[in-house]
């Protein structure tokens, strides 16, 4: 039984249809972790979490945003205009050609999308970096859009939520891409000064200039299980130290152990975590959100197996969120 509610599922199918992946419904996909074949439609319906080994495969930006907003409803915000190919850059190919190809393939103009909606009946503006678009790399347009999203959050008195998925800076924009580290940091500062929460979710992969700027500046930093998160690429490190890397190096769990992320949240529990954090931070005087019948109006949680999210006090409340992920649908230890 899927943990995704029936209300959400039809919408999910729409996003998948309109999204970047053009895989027909009848295809099978191989899980990169356990190498088992998974029916494409099943994988999508589980938000691309492997039913066999729980590996979190990369997820498209639409599904990403659809899974977190109330009623899966959100409005996509147009990206601001930004200079194209400011350096007139050319490697083996012209940068504008690479851009055009990414645009055609993804149906997107740039490597991130901005969405506006509600989470836990509270306003939220979310940004999702699109790894399918030139590796989610950050150039002037991404920086400009990130700033626009932060300003929108301030204007709407909304929580600012960012899903990171990026290999780092857009090298074809040279030094201008490096400057986006400062510009996105300013965006975070503006949100902070407006007294609004900034929640950063690090998904696979979050590296380079993105990890070394806004990704690591969240008021709360959440990672998805197994996500690769780090500054330098594993290959560069291997070449530098000339030895093999420790097991699990730069994985979300490694960062948690080293105190670099606040918690790891299973994709199926991401919305719940965001609702909780958003409400706790922005409604400091409210009754517990997940205690018995005290759900805020308009709140509709993704359906979860009863054994997974029920507290032991016989109430409807799920147990506390812990730093380590507790996969829904698996046997979960309830203290």
């Amino acid at each position, binding site marked *: 039984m899927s943990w995704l509610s029936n209300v959400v599922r039809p919408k999910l199918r729409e996003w998948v249809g309109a999204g970047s992946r053009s895989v027909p419904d009848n295809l099978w996909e191989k899980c990169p972790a356990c190498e088992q074949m998974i029916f494409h439609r099943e994988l999508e319906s589980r938000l691309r979490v492997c039913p066999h080994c729980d590996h979190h495969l990369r997820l498209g930006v639409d599904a990403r945003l659809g899974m977190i907003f109330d009623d899966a409803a959100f409005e996509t915000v147009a990206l601001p205009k930004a*200079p*194209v190919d400011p350096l007139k850059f050319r490697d083996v190919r012209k940068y504008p050609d690479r851009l055009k190809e990414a645009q055609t393939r993804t149906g997107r103009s740039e490597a991130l999308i901005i969405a506006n909606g509600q989470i836990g009946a509270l306003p939220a503006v979310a940004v999702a970096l699109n790894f399918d678009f030139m590796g989610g790399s950050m150039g002037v347009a991404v920086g400009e859009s990130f700033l626009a999203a932060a300003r929108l959050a301030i204007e709407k008195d909304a929580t600012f939520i960012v899903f990171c998925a990026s290999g780092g*800076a857009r090298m074809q924009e*040279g*030094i201008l891409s490096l400057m986006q580290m400062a510009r996105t940091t*300013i965006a975070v500062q503006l949100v902070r000064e407006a007294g609004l929460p900034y929640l950063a979710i690090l998904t696979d992969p979050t590296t380079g200039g993105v990890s070394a700027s806004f990704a690591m500046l969240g008021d709360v930093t959440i990672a998805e299980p197994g996500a690769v998160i780090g500054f330098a690429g594993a290959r560069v490190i291997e070449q530098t*130290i000339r030895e093999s890397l420790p097991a699990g190096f*730069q994985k979300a769990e490694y960062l948690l152990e080293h105190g670099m992320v606040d918690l790891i949240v299973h994709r199926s529990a991401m919305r719940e975590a965001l609702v909780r954090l958003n409400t706790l931070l922005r409604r400091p005087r409210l009754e517990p959100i997940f205690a018995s019948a005290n759900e805020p109006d308009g709140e509709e949680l993704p359906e979860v197996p009863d054994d997974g999210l029920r507290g032991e006090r016989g109430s409807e409340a799920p147990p506390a969120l812990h730093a380590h992920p507790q996969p829904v649908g698996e046997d979960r230890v309830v203290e």
Partner: protein
Amino acid sequence: MRTFLDFEKPIADLEGKIAELRHLSSTGEINIAEEISRLQVKLDASLKQVYGKLSAWQKVQVARHFDRPHSRDYLTGLIDDFVALAGDKAFAEDPAMIGGIGRFRGRTVIVIGQEKGADTEDRIRHNFGMARPEGYRKAQRLMRLADRFALPVITLVDTPGAYPGVDAEARGQAEAIARSIDICLGLGVPIVSVVIGEGGSGGAIALAAADRVMMLEHAVYSVISPEGCASILWRDGEQAKTAAQAMKMTAEDLKELGIIDRIVAEPLGGAHRAPELAVAAVGDALAEALDELAGRDADSLRQERRMKFLRMGAQQGA
């Protein structure tokens, strides 16, 4: 013994001849002095010619030159009463990031710089100027100290990049850099940065989100090393020369793109030929920048610093 770069062949020949003649002139022959001054004129012309039109890749070589003055040379030459401060007060002292408090031309300042080290052993000790998270956290601590005592901050950027190592990742290199940028941008005191050699990527901007960013004439500043860029985009490390050109990483390029505020001229033939002149030139430029920023209140400094970075990129192209 001076290290010569591959494009310095005619310069090396002339300098070699002059050195030989100088050695001979101690024996007292008169016409040798004349010959020396004749060669010196030729040498100056040659230096002017070669150094007047260095390619991006040649500048990379100059910026990394073994004899180029490093942060320590600037500290020694410019800062009086210097008190070096060590450690991030959390994990360790990082010799790749030096800093402290001292007097610069009549002002108490906080100085922070990446130090590459001199000879091989020293370079290893300083990890070739590649700081670990504790280095960036030390820089943050010093910047906070500056804020507390209303002291201007001077940063000297000279790094191939932040250290890519297992230990650095384990202790949060990404967070350390992000937080440094955050703190630079939030400072209520003036911060002036000079890229004195290599401005390598995130490890450089961590110290250079500043009110004034200057570069020495032959310094370079880029998002990735040309070798790294070449191996990723061209899939051929040999294309570093091409990548250096394409990335626009020279002081001239960056000035034109509005990324830096000023180019500080180097002595003829590069800073490594006359380190004390390079140090003095940087000193003059720093003094001017600090004069301009003196007396400004915290809010207007922060606002203007932000505006400066927010404008970047927006002015190019369409």
